[in-house]
C-alpha cells in the first residue's frame, strides 16, 4: 500500500467514525454502561503512545537511567494537573527537557 493510499484509508476510517454516529446511531443503541466504558477510551489509548515514547530509546530498549524524558514528563504532568492547560503542559515539558539536555 502506498503512503497516499494508506492516508486515504485512514481518512475514511476517521470520517466513518464521525459519520456513523450522525447517520446510523439511534439513542437506544448506546446504553449508559457502554457510554461509561467508552469514556475511558482516551485513558486506555493515549498511555500506549506516551509511555513507550518516554521510556524506550531509539532502538526500542527500556531506558530508565540517564533518560531526561522521564523527569521532563513528570514536570509536565504536575504542571498539567495544576494548571489544566494543554499549552502549559506541552511547553513546560519541552522547556524542562531542553534545560536538562543543554544546560545541566
Amino acid at each position, binding site marked *: *500500500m502506498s503512503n*497516499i493510499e*494508506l*492516508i486515504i*484509508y*485512514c*481518512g475514511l*476510517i*476517521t470520517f466513518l*467514525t*464521525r*459519520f456513523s*454516529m*450522525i*447517520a446510523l*446511531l*439511534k*439513542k437506544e*443503541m*448506546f446504553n449508559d454502561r457502554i*457510554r461509561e*466504558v*467508552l*469514556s*475511558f*477510551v*482516551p*485513558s*486506555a*489509548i*493515549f*498511555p*500506549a*503512545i*506516551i*509511555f*513507550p*515514547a*518516554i521510556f*524506550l530509546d531509539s532502538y*526500542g*530498549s*527500556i531506558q530508565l537511567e540517564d533518560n531526561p*524524558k522521564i523527569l*521532563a*514528563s513528570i514536570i*509536565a*504532568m504536575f504542571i*498539567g*494537573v495544576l494548571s*489544566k492547560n*494543554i*499549552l502549559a*503542559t*506541552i511547553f513546560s*515539558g*519541552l522547556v524542562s*527537557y*531542553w534545560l536538562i*539536555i543543554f544546560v545541566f
Partner: protein
Amino acid sequence: MNNKLKNFFKGVKDTSPLMIPVIPFGIIFGVLAIDLGLTPFTTIAMSIIIFGGASQIIFLQLFSAGASSLVILSSVGAVNSRHLLYGTVLSEHLSDLNLTWKIIVSYLLVDQAFAVSNDHFKQNKKDKDKYFHLIGGGLNCWTIWQITTIIGIYLGSIIPERLGLTFAIPLTFLALLVNDFRKLINVIVIIVSGTIATLGYQMIPFKAYVIVAASVGLFVAFILTRSTKKKHE
C-alpha cells in the same frame, strides 16, 4: 442577517477560544512529519484527508516505527472510537438533514466544534438552520489546521533535529489526559496500558502494542467500573 449566516458566524466565534491550543498542535504535526521524512505534499494531504490531530500524530508515530498498514489503520480507528461517544447527542439534533449535509457535517465534526455546537443545539432546538453553527465552527478548525500544518512544514525544514521535537508527541497526548490524572480508575487504566505498551513494544508482533495495550486498559476499566458500582448498590 440571514439566519444561516448568523448561525455560521456564531459557530466561528464560539470555537475561536478553543483554537489557541490547536495552533501549536498543527505546527508540531507539520514539523514532525517533515522531520520523519514525509514530503510536504503528503503532509498537506494528510491534514486535508484525515483532518484529525490525534489520528494524524499516531499515524506518524507508528509510520516512523515501521508498523504495517493494517496496524496503522486499526490504531487510527481505535483513536477515533472516542467519536462514537458523541453519537447519542448529535443524531438527535441532526436527524432531519439530508445525506449530503450529513456528510459535510461529519467531515467537519472535530472535538472542538462538537463541544460548542452541542451546547448551541440544546439552546436552539427549534431553529432549523442550527446545523450551520457546526459548519461554521468546523470550518474555523479546518482553516486553522491547514494553515498551521503549512507553517509547521516550513519550520520543519529549518528546526534542528537535536532539539528533540519528537518528544512533543508524548507531551501532546499527556496534555490531553491531564483531567484524568485526578481520577483513581483512570490512573489505574493509564498505568496498565502504558506498562503493557512499553514492555510489549518489542514482544508484541506487528507493532500492535497500541491496540493490545488499549484493549487491556479498556477491559480493566470495564471490570473496575462494574465493581465500584456494586459497592454503591
